């Protein structure tokens, strides 16, 4: 390895940054989370009669586990396509503020908008949480390759374990299927809490946890969208107020 390294030019190569990103994907807790989640979704796709290749393609194109669960169960139970499309789209609203918050971290150094198409497509909860945590410590010029490597690492994990779940489907006991589905909210909860070093992030997390279920039980339509807009604005406003009073 050392001979290889000395043969390379001293400037950081984007291949090395890409590999560093992919390596950090495999070493993070989200590797296990994605593995568990996609075993569950693969099993679901099998139960509703989709093909294994359809499942793999849905992981690459949709690349959002809540949307995939909605898509599979809606189409699988024969729901009208328009209704399924609306449900998928509502679940995807969160991707909008995530992309807006992520891309400025990758911008600069002659990056064109089309260089950012891929990271925008790769944006999903696990990748977003890890990118916001890791990217600020990486030099600007190396962030894009690192982020793409991280994303490809996660997506490969999802596709691989989607296949595994698809072929394991028949033998999975209910309790373990439930435990696999629990991986997603449990890991999102603690990793978001870990990332919340700033007061505004902690406020947004706490308010969202309370407001989300409250809006559901009071039958507010588009509950997640309102949780985000009201909860996020409340956290933002409270933080501004706190800064102004200092």
């Amino acid at each position, binding site marked *: 390895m050392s001979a290889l390294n000395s043969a390379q030019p001293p400037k950081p190569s984007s291949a090395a940054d890409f590999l560093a990103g992919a390596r950090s994907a495999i070493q993070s807790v989200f590797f296990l989370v994605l593995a568990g989640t996609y075993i569950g979704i693969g099993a679901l796709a099998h139960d509703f009669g*989709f093909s294994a290749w359809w499942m793999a393609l849905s992981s690459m194109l949709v690349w959002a586990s809540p949307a*995939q*669960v909605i898509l599979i169960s809606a189409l699988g139970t024969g729901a009208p396509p328009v209704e399924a499309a609306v449900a998928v789209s509502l679940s995807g609203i969160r991707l909008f503020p995530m992309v807006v918050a992520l891309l400025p971290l990758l911008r600069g150094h002659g990056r064109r908008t089309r260089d950012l198409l891929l990271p925008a497509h790769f944006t999903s909860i696990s990748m977003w949480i890890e990118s916001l945590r890791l990217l600020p410590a990486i030099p600007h010029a190396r962030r894009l390759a690192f982020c793409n490597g991280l994303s490809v690492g996660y997506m490969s994990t999802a596709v691989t374990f989607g296949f595994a779940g698809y072929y394991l489907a028949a033998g999975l006991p209910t309790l373990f299927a439930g435990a696999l589905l629990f991986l997603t909210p449990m*890991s999102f909860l603690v990793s978001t809490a870990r990332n919340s070093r700033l007061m505004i992030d902690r406020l947004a997390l706490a308010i969202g946890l309370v407001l989300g279920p409250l809006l559901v039980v009071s039958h507010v339509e588009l509950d997640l969208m309102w949780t*985000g807009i009201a909860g996020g604005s409340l956290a933002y406003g409270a933080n501004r107020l706190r800064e102004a009073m200092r």
Partner: protein
Amino acid sequence: MSAGGELSAFVMLLLVGFLPNEIWRVLGLVLARGLDEDSEIVVWSRAVATAILAGVIAKLILFSSGGLATIPLPVRAGAAACGFLAFLAVKRSVFAGVLVGEAALLLGGFLFAH
């Protein structure tokens, strides 16, 4: 699935799964153009995204579907609380939080599942 059914399943994947979801990423890409990471709208977007994520987490735990729905609500909520406490107790370790949360869920599910 038949060959025709297979083809229509792939068309459905594009029209019902890919496009309605991807539109938000493309809109984010368009809006983020020219914004820098410290601008107020980016800070606000981050708060909105975090609040939505928190809402998704709460909904997945409290209003579960599939195999998770067979585990009673108090077990699911209690397991999430155990996991969170373990995360705080063990130097903010995500791994410890997930491990303890899952262990609590399996134990509770084994004892109280219906």
